[in-house]
């Protein structure tokens, strides 16, 4: 495949992309990706927004001590760390199992013939 710096990507026949785009495999891949990332993004953004709003407008609630000097605000803050790590782990597992194999198959279908042409 050509890698001259024309700014755009290397040229490959249009029909290959369009055929791949219409294939059931690709539709499945796209819906699997979107089914995971869109709701998950909504979840973590709302969860973060809830935290920011509480820290911003509910000072006395956040300052309530739970044990020792550890208060609700600190626990909420640390839970943001936990949720970030958990969502990262969930996504990696999902991508490895549900996205990568399908993406790899479609990629091989496209790049196989493309290499023969070049």
């Amino acid at each position, binding site marked *: *495949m050509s*890698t*001259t*710096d*024309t*700014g*755009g*990507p*290397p040229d*490959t026949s*249009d029909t290959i*992309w*369009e055929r*791949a*785009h*219409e294939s059931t495999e*690709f539709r499945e*891949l*796209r819906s699997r*990706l979107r089914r995971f*990332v869109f709701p*998950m*993004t909504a979840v*973590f*953004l709302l969860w*973060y*927004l809830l*935290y*920011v*709003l509480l*820290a*911003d407008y509910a*000072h*006395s609630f*956040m*300052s309530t001590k739970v*044990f*020792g*000097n*550890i*208060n609700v*605000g*600190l626990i909420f*803050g640390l839970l*943001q*760390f936990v949720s*970030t*790590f958990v*969502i*990262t782990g969930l*996504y*990696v597992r999902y991508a490895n199992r549900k996205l*990568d194999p399908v*993406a*790899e198959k*479609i*990629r091989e279908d*496209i*790049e196989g013939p*493309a290499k023969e042409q070049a």
Partner: protein
Amino acid sequence: MTTLAASVEGSNPLLNIGIFALFVIITLVIVFRASRNTKTASDYYAAGRAFTGPQNGVAISGDYLSAASFLGIAGAIAINGYDGFLYSIGFLVAWLVALLLVAELLRNTGKFTMGDVLAFRMKQRPVRAAAATSTLAVSFFYLLAQMAGAGGLVALLLGVEGSGAQALVIAVVGIIMIAYVLIGGMKGTTWVQIIKAALLIFGALAMTLWVLAKYGFNFSSLLQAAVDKAGKAGETLLGPGKQYGATGTSKLDFLSLGIALVLGTAGLPHVLMRFYTVPTARDARRSVVWAIVLIGVFYLFTLVLGYGAGALVGPDVIKKAPGGVNSAAPLLALELGGPVLLGLISAVAFATILAVVAGLTITASASFAHDVYANVVKRGKTSPDSEVKVARITALVIGALAIGGGILANGQNVAFLVALAFAVAASANLPTILYSLFWKRFNTQGALWSIYGGLAITVVLIVFSPAVSGKSTSMFKSADFAWFPLSNPGIVSIPAAFILGWLGTVLSKEHDEKKYAEMEVRSLTGAGAEKAVVH
């Protein structure tokens, strides 16, 4: 900031300079070695796409953990308690946007810059010009903030007094940074990031364990000590509101900042460019995972360090020290390990500034050479060699501008520049990237409206905000032309840019169905993506 002239009491400037010099020599040797394989455009811009996911993840955390996050957040926690901690959470959660929505798709679709992705299915020249404009704007704001801080900070740690000597220090920082970028390209810069990140994280870990050991590994007793040390108002350190809770406007300002932090990261051009240095989208994903873990753990360290500085040094001593808030971590190092630990931590802070500035410079130079020179001016008819030559010259110019700007801004209150960089990234870049990757109908006019609209609205609102004029904390204290009440414009500018992108799109009939099909297949599967260079 003028009080920075005097050095921290008890520090040994010669020892500090010695440790700095050692860092610079070691990194320069590595950069020289890396430069031997830097030949093609792909080598210069993307390190031949040969870094592994974990290596790139460490480098990303090196790029991201600036002096502001190390010294600034630790200091903010020491003085303002919980409110300082709030920053770090926004900075961390933001990485989920990059992981879920941006990193892999960007790696699959583009070559070197953000403009590659945005212009993929649009009219090349106008969209690339717009992408380069916002990339250069964000890089320049961020760069200026780092350089202005660098003068004061290095002067503080080295004990350099007088504005002439500080200007010299800034110039030296700038020249070393230019050397990294010109000699080593992306590969050399990446190694500097990796070394710096390792030093920073291990340094913070050592200090964190040291502080915790002093309180029997009981975080609650550490908090109690911080409360006791702070005197009457000590209890307020534990809950939110000390810094931002004063009025309705300040609360709204914090909400606006929180939104810009979480949405800005995935639009920072120097972060985006790092995704091109790995061979596949899978490695881009692994790099973000490594970055999230390292950055998350680091922010937990700063929580301990901040309260530790509050407990062991005390907010009053920190506020009175040269450098104010920024001196919390260095003073804590001095308290714990004497001049040697202070020297090490100072060297880490110095390395941090150098590495972040180098990362910004290579990004800005790549965007100018690849988007503006090769594709807008030469319309794609140029050789990779001449493109890299232009990139190197641009890096030199940007370096000179950064030195000049840093000297001029030394002593100015330019803290708002970092907030501005994040706000522009979240307003001008992120909406356009997301529309481009996920919205079929999106077109050239929509891209231009969201980039230029987001950029213009953000800059105008900042210029007429209390960050620039009208308050004792403003850049211009004597003038007052502020009419926008918030220092952080994100809450207005981000939705506005999303709306503009949508409006611009629906008001234009242009639409390239074929290119969209190609882009979507490429972005999701990695078919036809740029491969690693084998040397």
